[in-house]
C-alpha cells in the first residue's frame, strides 16, 4: 500500500515572529524551521501502517529548496522516498493553491496511492484547509483531526475530534486523513536513518511539469497587511493570605470585570 505524507516546513513554535511591513511577510532571518508538528504525527502514522501492512511511504512537500531539510528528516524517520514540488512563490496563505498543486501531483505521479496523510493544520498559516481541499479535488473521502486510525484492507476507520465528542468515520480507500495530537508518539530519527537520508536523492518536480498555466495558480488571496496583535497588558497582582486573595479575585470578577 502506497502512503503519501504531505509535509510542510514551518517556523519553530518557540519563534518570536517579526514582520516586514513593506512586504507584509514574516522575517525569516533568525528563525529556526522545523517539520510542522502535526505533519510529524502523520509521518509516524504512515510508518506504523507500513510496518503492519507493508508498502511504501512517500513524503511530499510544496515549497522552495529550503524545504529539502524537512524531507531529509522524513527520510531519516523512515520514509522510502521524498519529493519536492518546487513552488516559486513564498507563503501565500492560500490553501486552494497548495491543494491544487498537491492534487495534480498525486494524479500525475502517484495515482495508486491509497492513503494521503496530512497534519490537521500547518503551524503558522494555521489554515486547516489543504487536506479537505485535496480530498474534494480528487473526489475522495476525508477524515480530519484524527486521533485514531485503523486500516483494514480497502477501508479504514478513523476517530476524529469534534466538540465534546469523537466521530467515528468509515472510509473507503483512497482517502485523506489529517492528524491531530494524540494519534501517536512520533519516533526519533536514528543515526543510521540520518546517514541514509543524506545519501538519498530527492527528486524535484516543477509546477510547469505538472501542466499548470501561470494564471491557473494565481493566489485567491490579496494580502492587505500583516500586523502584530496588540500586546496584552499585565494587570493587577495580589499576594498575601489565601482567603483574602480569593475574596479579591472574586470581587474583581464580579464587580469590576462583571463576568461572574
Amino acid at each position: 500500500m502506497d502512503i503519501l505524507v504531505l509535509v510542510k516546513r514551518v517556523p519553530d513554535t518557540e519563534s518570536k515572529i517579526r514582520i516586514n511591513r513593506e512586504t507584509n511577510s514574516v522575517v525569516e532571518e533568525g528563525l529556526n524551521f522545523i517539520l510542522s508538528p502535526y505533519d510529524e504525527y502523520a509521518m509516524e502514522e504512515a510508518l506504523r501502517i507500513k510496518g503492519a501492512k507493508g508498502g511504501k511511504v512517500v513524503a511530499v512537500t510544496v515549497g522552495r529548496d529550503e524545504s529539502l531539510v524537512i524531507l531529509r528528516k522524513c527520510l531519516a524517520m523512515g520514509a522510502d522516498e521524498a519529493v519536492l514540488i518546487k513552488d516559486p512563490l513564498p507563503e501565500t496563505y492560500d490553501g486552494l493553491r497548495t491543494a491544487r498543486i498537491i492534487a495534480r501531483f498525486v494524479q500525475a505521479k502517484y495515482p495508486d496511492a491509497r492513503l494521503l496523510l496530512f497534519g490537521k493544520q500547518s503551524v503558522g498559516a494555521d489554515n486547516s484547509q489543504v487536506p479537505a481541499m485535496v480530498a474534494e479535488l480528487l473526489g475522495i473521502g476525508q477524515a480530519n483531526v484524527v486521533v485514531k486510525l485503523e486500516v483494514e484492507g480497502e477501508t479504514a476507520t478513523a476517530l476524529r475530534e469534534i466538540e465534546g465528542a469523537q466521530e467515528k468515520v468509515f472510509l473507503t480507500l483512497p482517502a485523506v486523513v489529517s492528524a491531530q495530537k494524540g494519534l501517536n508518539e512520533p519516533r526519533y530519527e536514528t543515526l543510521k536513518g540520518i546517514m541514509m537520508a543524506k545519501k538519498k536523492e530527492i527528486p524535484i518536480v516543477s509546477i510547469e511539469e505538472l501542466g499548470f498555466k501561470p494564471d491557473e495558480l494565481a493566489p485567491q488571496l490579496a494580502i492587505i497587511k500583516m500586523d502584530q496583535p496588540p500586546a496584552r497588558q499585565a494587570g493587577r497582582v495580589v499576594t498575601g493570605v489565601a482567603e483574602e486573595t480569593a475574596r479579591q479575585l472574586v470581587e474583581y470578577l464580579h464587580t469590576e470585570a462583571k463576568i461572574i
Partner: protein
Amino acid sequence: MILTYIETREKKIKKSSLEALSEARRKAAELGTEAAAVLVGTGIEGLAAELSSYGASKVYVLESGSLDRYSTQDYAAALAGLVKKLCPAAVFFSATAMGKDLAPRLAARLGVGLASDCTQVSAGDGGLEFTRPIFAGKALLTFRLTSSPQVVSLRPNVFPLAPAAAAGEVIRETVEIPATTARAEVTEILQESGGEIDVTEADIVISGGRGMKGPENFELLREISALIPRSAVGASRSAVDSGWIGHQHQVGQTGKTVSPNLYLAFGISGAIQHLAGMSSSKVVVAVNKDPDAPIFKVADFGVVGDLFQVIPPLKEELKKLRG
C-alpha cells in the same frame, strides 16, 4: 446576499452558528444586501423560527434522507448546489470542527479561496476584508479574497450575538446529491463522559498545569467549573502529556485555541505555546506561586500564591455569590 450555514447537532442550533449569522447580518446591512441562512439535515425545519429572530430574512432548508447524518461530501454537494442557484456574495461558517471540515471542501468544489478562522470582518470599498490570527496569534493577517463567492469561517466566541427580528421566509429546496464511490461516513458519535462542553465553546475556561501536581487534583477544577455555568476545564500540555487529563482539554499551539470571556490559569507558567492558545481570551486570571511566571505578563488579574490554598476559599466565595 450573505448566506450562513447553520450547524445543528442533535437537532439543536449551535450558538457559534448564531454568532456567524449575527455577523453576516451586520455585514449584509453595511453592504446593503440581505442575510440568509441554510439548514441541512432532516427534521430541522422547526428551527427556522430561531434563525429569523437573529435576522435571517430567508431560511433555506435542504432536507433529504441521505443528509440525516453529517457527511462532508454530501453536505458540500448540497451546499454547492444551493450556492450555484443563489449566487450569494459570501458564505459564512463557524470555524467549529464541522465548519473546518466542510468549508474548505465547499470552497474547493466551487473553485474559490477560503478565509478560515477569521476574528474580524470589515466591509470596505472593495468588498469584505478579513483578519485572522496566524502563527498561533503571534501575527494578524488582513486580506481580501479575489474569487467569488467568498467562503469564510468565523472563530467561535469572538463575534457578538445580535438578536434582530426579520421576516424569515422559509424556503424548502430539493437537492441532488451525486452518488460517489469513494465514501466517508460518520457511523457513530462517541460522547465524552458527562457531556461537558468543549473548551472552545465555553464562556469560561478553568485550566490547570503542572502545578496541579496530579490527575486527582483536576477534580478541584471540576468543582469550580460546577459552580460556574457554561464553563469547561482546560489544561496545559504538560498536564496532558503527564496523562492527568485527556488531550481534548489541551489549550495552546498544539491544542485548542480558545476565546472565552474568562480564562483562569492555575499552576500554568505561561509558555509561548500555551499563550498562543488563550491570548484572545477577553479576561485572563492566573494563580501561580511564582511571582515571575510569564503568565502574569498577560493576566488582567494575578494571584501569587499556592493554588491548593487559594482554591478552597475561592470555592466558598463563588458559592456565596450564587446565594
